């Protein structure tokens, strides 16, 4: 028996070496021939990466994450400069700046910035865009499978109805979910008042029975497969689910939606700074923005790109959240560590 297994071993090794014909070299620092990017799952199309690699000859190594806190944890635990590019959301950019974790962007290299919609530049979390350039944004909206659910759902509060037991997929993100519960009560997503927090806690736990699945990577999968008939997730995921199954409908909550805007940031000590600048500039090209928008239809701050995407994109409310949604909605902001601990406790209790 041992002989058998040893022979299998040898064959497996040979198989591995065979596929090794034409293996690429390990990525190492220096020469800016490589670029290490750390981005959200389902956010940067492979075709775009491929195009960048073909045009510049720089090899891109992609790692992914599905929450800002995951990204922060990984960047902090790695040695400095392990990643050249990351994609924090609004509040996380602020956190990173405060901790001195970002490199200043060399604006002279970022010539395509003229393509960007002014409304999304110079925001409060990074005045003057010293450290960040916006990429994509959107809302945490509701998706309803109208084949199964015939009721009229219009708000976050509707999701708490006990008749939707075991049918909801939500983001695996404590600020998003707890914030949503807060909004359903009419409070802010960034509430810190302890009495209100107690109410928010009770409210969040009410949702427990309805939640079937936590998924920040690809919530549309559960919608498309039918495992979940309701969702609270990123707007573009809903847009994509709608294309696969026209019975799925998007609803922007009446309380005002959870809004987010993700940005390109270069972490301090990045080994391939020049390549990173090239990459960000490339991502701001109108054509690139168009390719991105076609695969991941999020709110796109690139005005030139949006123009190329046409009516189909701009008039689709799931792909391009309407102005009222953006005005009524709320962004996540940083809160003090005691409140943060309280949020964490709520989250642990919810998830078990």
């Amino acid at each position: 028996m041992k002989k058998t297994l040893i022979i299998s071993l040898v064959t497996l090794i040979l198989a591995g070496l065979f596929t090794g014909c034409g293996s690429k070299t390990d990525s190492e620092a220096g020469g800016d021939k490589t670029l290490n990017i750390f981005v959200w799952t389902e956010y940067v199309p492979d075709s775009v990466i491929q195009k960048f690699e073909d045009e510049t000859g720089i090899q891109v190594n992609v790692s992914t994450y599905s929450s800002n806190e995951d990204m922060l944890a990984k960047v902090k635990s790695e040695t400095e400069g392990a990643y050249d590019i990351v994609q924090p959301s609004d509040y996380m950019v602020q956190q990173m700046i405060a901790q001195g974790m970002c490199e200043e962007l060399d604006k002279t290299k970022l010539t395509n910035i003229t393509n960007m919609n002014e409304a999304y530049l110079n925001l409060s979390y990074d005045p003057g865009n010293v450290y960040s350039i916006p990429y994509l944004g959107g809302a945490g909206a509701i998706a309803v499978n109208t084949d199964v659910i015939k009721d009229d759902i219009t708000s976050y509060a509707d999701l708490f109805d006990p008749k939707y037991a075991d049918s909801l997929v939500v983001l695996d993100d404590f600020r998003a979910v707890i914030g949503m519960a807060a909004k359903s009560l009419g409070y802010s997503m960034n509430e810190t008042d302890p009495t209100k927090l107690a109410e928010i806690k009770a409210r969040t736990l009410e949702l427990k029975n309805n939640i079937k699945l936590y998924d920040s990577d690809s919530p549309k999968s559960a919608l498309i497969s039918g495992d979940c008939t309701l969702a609270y997730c990123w707007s573009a995921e809903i847009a994509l689910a709608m294309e696969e199954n026209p019975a799925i409908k998007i609803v922007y909550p009446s309380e005002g939606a959870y809004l987010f805007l993700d940005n390109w940031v270069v972490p301090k000590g990045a080994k391939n700074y020049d390549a990173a600048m090239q990459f960000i500039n490339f991502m701001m090209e109108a054509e690139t923005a168009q390719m991105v928008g076609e695969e991941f239809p999020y709110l796109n701050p690139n005005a030139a790109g949006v123009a190329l995407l046409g009516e189909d994109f701009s008039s689709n409310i799931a792909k391009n959240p309407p102005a009222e949604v953006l005005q009524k909605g709320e962004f996540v902001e940083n809160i003090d560590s005691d409140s943060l601990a309280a949020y964490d406790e709520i989250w642990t209790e919810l998830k078990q």
Partner: protein
Amino acid sequence: MGSKRHNIRSNILPKVFMVGPITLWLGFLIVIPLLYVLVMSFCGTDEYYNIVYKFTLENYKRLFAFNYLEIYAQSLLIAFFTTVICILLGYPFAYLITRKFTRKKAILYMMVIIPFWTNSLIRIYGWRTFLGATGFLNNLLMDLHLVTKPVEFLFNRGTTILGMVYCLFPFMVIPLYSAIEKLDQNLLEASADLGAKGRNTFFKVILPLTISGVFAGSIMVFIPCLGYFFVSDILGGGNADVIGNLIKRQFQSGNDWPLGSALSIILILITLLLVRIYQKLGGSMESLGM
């Protein structure tokens, strides 16, 4: 004769050369990291998630709060059911293979191991595909008109236990196979000669002699089960978190290494307790090393 000369030869150099590397290895990669985890479990974090090196019992206090205790209970329950199911399925299986289908036992044994040459993650994903709302099983049930809408198999504790049993089944079978194979046929014959019927022989002779296999298998199933976060992630969907998930979260989005360390220490203590019980019941450490 000549051996006396060799005994006088210095033994220090070979000793250091042979045992040195492993000592250094174990020291640097097991002892020091675990000690560091212990130290960290008594530290705190600041608002930017950086570790603050000041002694505090805060982490342990938090971990003995009610919501965490519920998760330990859930973990232990999942591990308990997984172990019991593995025993109930594994024992008869190992017994039949070793004693009934003896001639083919080598191949039959290999057939248990072969699936594990495929990546375990993708096999668990295979279960997810099979049990999903539009998966094969539901499609079959609907086609046969046994149900009118898809049964919700996924994303609960039951399916997580199924996944755990699936992953850990060989760890029960291997020691059981070992123990049952060593059964001396003569003892069984003696028992029959003395007039014991099948059932008596089983409970009074076979079971006591093979119980060591059951214990070893139980430890090798129960303990990993507490840490197998990927099974709960893929099949449980976040609803059947085990202690491993908690720990993983603290090293990721939770950004709280000290809390994660404290959780790990608690997990280590549970492990040590179980191993102690195992030893008291007569289990030997060698059979755990396979």
